[in-house]
Each structure stands twice: as C-alpha cells, then as structure tokens.
C-alpha cells in the first residue's frame, strides 16, 4: 500500500501570552491511499490542529510531515500554497465560501490559482464537480440562496475540483441538522468509493461510524487507532429516513 500521509513526531505549540499551549505532543500517523479516516476527540484534544497541519493551513512547531512522499515541513510559503492548491481539498465546518459569489465561481476558485493549468477548462471542471455532489441545478446561486447542506456540498465540490490526493474535512457536519449531515456523509462515502482518500474530524460518534478507520485523540496524543470492519452506509440510512417520513 502507498502512504499518502506520513507524520513523524509532529508537535504544535501555541504561545498565548505567557502560557504555552501544547496542542500536539508528537503525532505519528500514516494514512494509506483510499482510506476513510475519522479523527475523534473532545474539544481541545488537538484534532483540528492536526487536521490544519495535514491540510497545510498551518505549520508544525517540530516534526516531519510527508505528503505523497514530499517533505512538506521543509517547503517555502509559496510551495506550501501550491501544495494546498494541487494536493489538498479542504472542507470547513463554517463552509468558508466567498459571499456574493455563485456556487460555480466558488468551485472554480482553486483552479484560478493553479499555475500549472493542468485543468484545461476550469468552468467545465467546476460544473462536473458540482454535478458529482448533486448540485447541477444550483450552480448560479450565491451562498445565501443555498441551504447549509447545499453550501457544504459546494465546499466539497470546491475541494474536489483540483483533483487532490486527499480530501480533508474539519467538522463538516457541525453546522448541519442530522438529515443533512447524513446526506453530506453519503457524498463523502461515494467519493471514497471512487478512490479518494478522506480524513474527517468530528466529535460525533454518529458521524465517525461512516468512516473505515477511527483515531481517537486526547491532550495532543493519539489514544486509539482502530479500523472499522464494516462501515455504516449513509445511503442506506438515508433510505430508512425517507421511509420513516
């Protein structure tokens, strides 16, 4: 198997005034291509910090991080930006879409910053990404014309459009009701079935059971790392929900 993510003794320390906060105290993690990983833990356990480091949105205080066998921790700021652009799709809890900007334009945004121009027709690619998350009829809507679930699906399409090695999601269902949460998870499962490596951060057991592997964190350490033999199918849950209605 091919390791997409390898971290070795990653730490992150925040300086808040006089106090040093050790958010991560040496994380060793390896994620193979095609995995669906859920990182769990109470708030303050360091799970979001780990996710931000893996997503190259933040830099570790010490330790090494290899993404697709590239030593990311030694890169310059611009190379960091390019890694974010080409290899990573990130989905946030709060969606983080550009306001007053249509779904299609939001999805196109990563391609605008792609210097290699490896995707020849950005508009077409953005349209396809939106079709993949089932939003082909909402392309010209701006975020505040969309429901939370729809906004999150736009964000997922944006994360997919640049064909990343990994798709990261930090509490992707945190702002959504349970029905919409299942819908979003079913989108993730579908993408994972198509071969995309997915990492999500969540504190809900309900959500983590859709993953294939669960990591539990506490106080900056990995407490437990165990595979799930049979992940729950979000699609089936959705069908059950429909029948109940």
């Amino acid at each position, binding site marked *: 198997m091919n390791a997409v993510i390898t971290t070795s003794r990653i730490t992150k320390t925040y300086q808040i005034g006089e106090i040093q906060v050790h958010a991560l105290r040496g994380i060793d993690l390896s994620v193979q291509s095609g995995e669906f990983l859920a990182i769990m833990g109470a708030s303050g356990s360091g799970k979001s910090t780990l996710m931000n480091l893996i997503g190259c*949105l933040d830099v570790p205080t010490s330790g090494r991080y290899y993404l697709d066998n590239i030593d990311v921790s030694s890169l310059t700021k611009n190379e960091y930006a390019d890694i974010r652009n*080409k290899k990573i799709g990130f989905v946030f809890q709060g969606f*983080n879409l*550009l306001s007053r900007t249509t779904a299609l334009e939001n999805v196109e945004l990563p391609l605008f*910053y792609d210097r290699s121009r490896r995707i020849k027709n950005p508009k077409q690619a953005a349209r396809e990404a939106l079709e993949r998350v089932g939003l082909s009829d909402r392309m010209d809507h701006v975020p505040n014309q969309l429901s939370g679930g729809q906004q999150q699906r736009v964000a997922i399409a944006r994360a997919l459009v*640049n064909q990343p090695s990994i798709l990261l999601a930090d509490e992707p269902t945190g702002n959504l009701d349970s029905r919409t949460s299942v819908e979003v998870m079913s989108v993730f499962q579908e993408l994972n079935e198509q071969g995309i490596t997915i990492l999500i951060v969540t504190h809900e057991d309900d959500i983590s059971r859709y993953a294939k592997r669960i990591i539990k964190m506490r106080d900056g350490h990995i407490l437990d790392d165990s595979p799930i033999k049979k992940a729950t199918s979000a699609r089936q849950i959705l069908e059950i929900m429909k029948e109940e209605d």
Partner: protein
Amino acid sequence: MLQLSNLLKASFTSIMKNRMRSLLTSLGIIIGVSAVIVMVGIGSGSQKRIAKEISSLGNNMIIVFPAFSMRGGVSRGAGSFNRMTMEDVEAIREEATQVQYVSAVVMSAGQVVGNGNNWSTSVQGVDPEYQHIRVWEISSGEFFSDRDVRTLKKVAVLGKTVADKIFGSMDPIGQKIRIRNTPFKIIGVLKEKGQDARGQDQDDIVYAPSTTVLYRLKGDRYVNSINASAVTLESIGKAQEEIMTILRREHKIEPGQNDDFNVANQTAITEMASETSRIMTMLLGAVAAVSLVVGGIGIMNIMLVSVTERTREIGIRMSVGARGQDILTQFLLEAVVLSVTGGIIGILLSFGIALILNNWTTVNTSIGSGIVALSFTFSAAIGIFFGFYPARRAAALNPIDALRYE
C-alpha cells in the same frame, strides 16, 4: 505570480460583487478630493478677487496734492493754496527717472447733455498716461493721445455708467455730447470697473484731455492734483523724493521753507494687499490641510471597517492555494482602481460645483492644477495604503489564522 490580466479581472469582479463597499470606499475619496478642491478653489478665488480690486486702484501710484494754506492761524484746508501747473507735470515727466507715468488731474463737474438725455457727473481732465496709472481698459474706441492734449482737442472718453445713461444701447463712439455748452466728440468708452472701496461708482466719469478741461472748460491755470506711478513697487519712495525735489525747485521753495504740496502714496494699501494675500494663503493652507485630513480619515475608516470581511476572504483564497503575492497584487489593483476612479469622479464633481458657484452665486472659485494634483495624490495614496494594508497583513498570516480572524 499569476497573469496580471487575470488578477485585474479578479479585482474588477470583486469590486462589482461588493458594490456597496466599493461605493463607500470611492465615496470617501470622492468627497475628500472634491471638498479639498472646492474649498481651496473658493479661497483662491477670493484671493484673486481681492488682488484684482486692489490693483484696479492703480499701479504703484503716487498722488501730489496742493498743500493747505494758513492765514492768521486758520487752516483753509487742502488745496486752498494751489500753485501746481501743467509745467510742473512736464518737469516731472522730463526729469524724474523713477516715475513711469505721470498725469495732471483737472477736476470739473457738470451736466453732460447728449442724445436727448442729460446726466450730472464728474468731468476730469487727464493726460493719456492716466489710463495706465489707474489701469483703465477700453471697451470700445480709444483713449485720447498726446496730440489731443497738445491741441486742446474737444474729445472725451466715457465711463460705462455715463455711456449707459446718455446713450443707452446706442454706440456712443463718434457722437457728440455737451459739457457746460462745450461740445465734445466721444472717442472711447471705458470697461466697467464697478464700485471702489468706498462704494463710489468708478464708472460714473467723463475723461477729457487735461488741457481742454483746464483752459477751455475751467479757464484756470492750476491743476487739482498730479497722479504718477513709480517704475516698481520698491521705487515708490525714490520716485516720491524725485517729485518733491522737482516741485520744490519749480516752486522756488527755499531750504527750510514748507512745501506747498503734499505727496501721498499707496504704500499703505499695497502693504495691506500683501498682508491680506499672506493671511489668505495661510488660511487656504489650513483649509486644505483640514479637508485632506478629514477626507483621509473617512477613507481610512471605510477601509478598516472592511478588514474583518477581507481577512476572511484572504483566508479562503489562501486555503485553496493562493500565494501571498497573488493576494497582494489583487488587493493592490482593487485599491488602485477604486482610488483612481474615486479621485477622477471627485475632480469632475469639484469642477461641476465650481461651475455652479461661479455662474449662479457671487462666490468666485478658482481651481489651480496644484491643489487638484495634491488632493488626488493624497486621497489616492490613503485609499491605496488602507486598501493594501489589511491585505498585506493578512497575506502574511497562516491561512488558518486569516480564516479565524475576527
């Protein structure tokens, strides 16, 4: 860096998507620029008007009056002892080197009759040089010549008021008027000067050759005053000395004896003029400075208010792979476009306001290119700086910190 054209397109898109913010930002610059230009324009318009009014009194003027006489301890007032003649005027004209123009002034008054109308006005006999001393401009025809003076020609130049009263809309040139039964041919009409500082109508006047008025109209041999103008403002003192020396010699006044004339000059007025102009300049500077600062603060406020929103936007852009310089370039272009557009609109607006003020009110505005350039540069610089500054700070953050910014 990405292609500049793409980033410029992104800037335009962002401006158009955030119309209200763009409008408010530009509005700050529009108001800043136009307020400064109009305020300073009003100031310098007034300054020019004052300068014009002072210069219309005459250039570096020196006036010689006859002195008063004392008889048995009783002063009989200025002019009660008049011995100034045409010969004195000629002597000054020939000898005084610091005097540029000199003219006799012979005062008379009377009913002017012509074209079936009549008007009581002041008739003054002067020499052709008088036109330059008092800065009179001709609106039609011409001023009389030295030859007219030598030949006691019965010609006259009318002030605007007199021309209007006697001839109305008719062209007075070539027409005849009678002043105390002496016929005069009109050869010129003066341009309107308006009221002087004392509120007297300067255009209610008839000028004729000094000799004509003195010998034909008054039958006298003494002139009422001599007007002269010095070569420069600085030479007024010297010119005055020369005139006094010449007149004392002409009048055979022994050393120790009192002058039988008084010499006055415009130094006081000139000093007042330059003092006024100095105060006006200071006032203009202060007004411009205050306006620029107020405009600048307005621009700054709007720019800083949008920092939170913009920092989050920058976080989003960076999280999907924008490099620091992509962000900087886009935001810089945005700030430049908004500031320059706002500045240009502000300049046009101020020209419009100036046009309205000049045509529909008594306020005079005069817009100089200096203040236009200054206000534009200053406002644009503030706009660009405060548009660019949040971007610069945010682009230096880690994307996650920019996203969390509040």
